[in-house]
Each structure stands twice: as C-alpha cells, then as structure tokens.
C-alpha cells in the first residue's frame, strides 16, 4: 500500500510530548521529558534498564497518565490535550489510532484465542461486525507481518516467541494506526529470529511509512531501525538527535560510555 508523499514533507510533528514527569512513590520514572515524532519517521529510545523507556511508551499509548505534562497527536478531530481527555475518550482514541507491540506478548495478546482472533479483536473494537471482513482483514494483517497463514487460527500460546511478536504486530497495524509503538519488540528472541522480525518492521516502514517509536536497550536495533534517537537515563533525556550523529559523535558522557561499551 502506498502512502501519499505529503506526510513526509509536512513540517508539523505528528506526536508531541512536552515536559512529562511521573513518579511512583519515591521513584522518579520520568522527569521533564519532551519528545516529538514527525510523520513517517522512526524515533528510537535507548537507555539502561529502569531509565523510564516503557513508562514513556505507556504514556504515549494513553495507558497511564503522568503527574504533569502535555501530549498531542496531530490528527483531524482529535483534541489538543490528550492527557486531559476522560478515560473513555482515551481508550477509544488508543483503540482507533495507536498500535502497540509489548516486549511481553502476554501483555498484548489473548493467549488462548486464535491468532487471527487476536487481530480481529482490534477491528471489532472499531465496530466492524461482518465475519467475512474480519477474517479477510485479519488475514491481510497477518500476511503483512509475515506470519505463516496456515497457522492463523492457532492460539499464540502454541507459537514461538517470534511468531507471537508477529501476531502482536499484525494486531497493532490492523487499523492502520497513526503511530506504532514498539517496546523491545525483539528482546528475548534469538539473533536470527530477531533479524527476521526487524526485517519485517523495516519493510513495513518502507512500504507504509508508518510513524514508529521503538524502544530498545540494544543500540544495534536502534541503529538499523531509527531515524532519530533519544537517549534516556534515570527518567531524563540525556541526548537526542539523528542516529548517525549521536552514535558517531556522542556529546553526553553517558552516551559516549554507552556507544563505546557497545563498539
């Protein structure tokens, strides 16, 4: 499927998060974090364990609210302050416009339903009520995620980790979301499977120009996937910029240590 070019040239960010802070008791999970993602772009987020990457992604998915901060998505008919919407509106917006792939497939999938059913659920939430259409669209989505169609009715619990991530991906893209959030989508997969899943993501990105935010502690994943990168530590953004720039010429001491440890 071809996306029209104007999405690329529009100068307005699609996703904008400003000054977001969140604490859990004494733990500061996010501190004055701001992020912008432009249409068709892939933003990578790296950082050590506990640096707040998943928390930030959960905010972007409107699963959780911050203590302070603002969030907007530049979509027609969507209010300007997403955190200010009531719970129902947030859930509906999430169902309609945001796709997410969790590191742990148990968070994103109904393990005992069929894989195709997991994808169909997204379409059902959006109001599709024709069985034949659900089936066809689930099939298309699974195919786009390079999931073997002969297993489309197998429950995820019977599938390998890589296959489960493909089901999550198919589910996330079924409604053509405005933004696709990926939280460590390949962590825990062996290297060859990881490469295959990344290939699928790259192909999807190339063909559909899906706007993505991908979280990983693996610099290699970020380097292959992302256009821009945000480095996080202890709930703060320590550095942000174009991937090549940040990785070749890191400014912050922390990023330098991170890049050199990796190389």
């Amino acid at each position, binding site marked *: 499927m071809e996306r029209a070019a104007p999405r690329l040239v529009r100068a307005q960010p699609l996703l904008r998060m400003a000054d977001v802070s969140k604490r859990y008791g004494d733990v500061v999970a996010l501190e004055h974090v701001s992020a912008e993602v432009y249409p068709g772009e892939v933003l990578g987020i790296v950082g050590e364990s506990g640096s707040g990457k998943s928390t930030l992604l959960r905010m972007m998915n409107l699963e959780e609210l911050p203590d302070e901060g603002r969030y907007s998505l530049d979509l027609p008919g969507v209010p300007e302050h997403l955190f200010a919407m009531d719970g129902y509106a947030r859930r509906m917006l999430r169902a309609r416009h945001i796709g997410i792939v969790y590191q742990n497939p148990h968070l994103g999938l109904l393990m005992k339903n*069929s894989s195709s*059913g997991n994808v169909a659920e997204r379409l*059902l*939430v959006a109001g599709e009520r*024709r*069985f034949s259409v659900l089936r066809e669209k689930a099939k298309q989505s699974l195919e786009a995620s390079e999931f073997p169609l002969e297993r489309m009715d197998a429950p995820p619990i019977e599938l390998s980790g890589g296959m489960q991530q493909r089901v999550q991906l198919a589910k996330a893209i079924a409604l053509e979301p405005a933004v696709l959030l990926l939280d460590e989508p390949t962590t825990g997969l062996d290297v060859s499977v990881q490469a295959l899943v990344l290939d699928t993501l790259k192909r999807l990105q190339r063909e559909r120009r899906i706007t993505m935010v991908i979280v990983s502690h693996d610099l290699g994943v970020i380097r292959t996937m992302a256009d821009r990168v945000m480095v996080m530590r202890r709930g703060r953004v320590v550095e942000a910029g174009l991937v090549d720039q940040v990785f070749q010429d890191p400014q912050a001491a922390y990023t330098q240590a991170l890049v050199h440890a990796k190389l």
Partner: protein
Amino acid sequence: MSLDTLTRPWKAFSYGFLDASAKREMRRKILKAIAVPGCQMPYASREVPIARGWGTGGLQATLTLVNPGSVVKVIDQGADDSVNAASIRRFIARVSGAATTLDTVQATIIQSRHRVPEEKLRADQVLVLQVPNPEPLRPVEPNMSVARQMHADADYGRMWLQLYEQIVRSGRVMQGASYPSLVNGRHVMTPSPIPRWDVPKLNMAKHLTILSAGREKRLFAVPPFTRVEPLVFDDVPYRVEDHAGLTCHRSGARGVFMNEIPQEDGTSLHEVSDSQLGVKLLNGEAPGEMWYRDGVFRP
C-alpha cells in the same frame, strides 16, 4: 384501649418470608434494574431456605413481588425431594398464601430456571428468571473491575470475538443457552440459562422479565417493550435451535422446543420441554397464543 389493639399478633416469620427491609431493598433494586434495562444491579441477597445456586435469586424476587392475590407458576426440572419446581412452588404458597398453578395462562408470576413458556406472556404477568452467572463478560474478562469498565464503555468487542472463535473452530456459532444479547441498544446481558429458542420471546415483549442471581448477588431486568437483540455478525444470522421438525413422543406436539431423551439403542426421543403445554395438548385443550408457529417465531 389496650396494647393488644395497637399491635399485631406475633408471627414466626414475615409475610413472604423475607423481612420488610429486605423486600424494600429488592423493590428498589428491581426498580433501578427496570430504569436501566440490562444493567446489573448489586443487592444484598438474603438467606432463604434453599442453597445458594439453586434459585435463591429468583426466589427472592418472587417473594418480594408476591401477594395473596398472586397466582404462581414455577418452571424447573425434576419433582423429587430436592429443590425443584414443586418444592419451590409449595414454599412460595406456604409463606404468602398465593395460589399456585401449572398453567402459564393462569399465572401472574412465573419463576423459571431455564425456560420462557411457549405460550405468550401478557402485560399483567411477570417472568422471574433464576440466573446462575449474570456477567456476560466473565468468560472474556476474569477481572470484574475491568468488566464493569467495559460495560460502562459499551466495549463489547470481546463478546463478538467469542462468536468469531466459535465459527473459526466449529464452523458455526456454538453458543447454546445464555446467548449474549444487547438490551435496549446499550447493555449486553446473558439471559442465562434459557436456550436460543427463547431469546426472541424477550424482545419487545409485553411482560416484564426480572433476572436475578442470588449467589452472585446481582439482578437485571428487561422491561416491557424493550429491544433484546442477540449479538450476531452482520453476515451470520441468528438461528434458534432446529426443533421445528421434531415431534413430542408423549403429546404429539410439534414446532416447539423439545428435550432430547437418549434411548438405549442410541436413538433419541423428544418430548415437549414445556410439559404443561404437552398436558394441555393431550387433554385436547386449546393452548394460549403461542410465540412460535410451526417452529417459526412470530412476534
């Protein structure tokens, strides 16, 4: 004037067994349930002299509604010494002085475990269903707080997902009893445990239906003239049980819901599930107006 003339004689139990405050709560909850059709209302659920799970919810509703002018019919299976239609009926009559009947047409209150009678109910009749599992979302969402949220959002996609899975696995919708249905275009209820055959009888019906679960302590209602729509896919129509062609081996009745009675030789006999209807037909009496004719529903 003496104290005697100002007080009532002592009685071993209140009229209708439940005490006045219990009945007041039931009445309030029933009214709320009628005000928001299909929405589950929590209630205290008092002790009655049968075990939880054996129809205590329905019994509490009936005991609240009953009065000396009522005529009560009870539908359940079996007539042995345990809890069944006969013993529940006797109990209601004993504590309320109400008359009892087997005949749907005569009854003013019909308490039922698993069926809606085959004869049409009227505006002056109340159907009380004993419900084991009032929460339609339970099979798809074990967390009841989340389920409440889903009801509030009218977020029922997972109910269709359940049907999707059945079609994928078995080629058709397998849901038999308790078919999830949308009430008044807003709340999904489980009309448990009546068969699919009986669900259309609740749609735009003249009578009030109260569904009450004593063990789960919740009740809900379908008021008269309220839409009850079984959940279906736009391209997979709702189908009732295929009983139109079966004949009752005792009464010769046809075109109504049948119980299957397996025989030793592997075949099955069928008998009309609404047994009093079968008795009427055997005695050559004319039944009341029927919901189905020749196995086809006609509202």
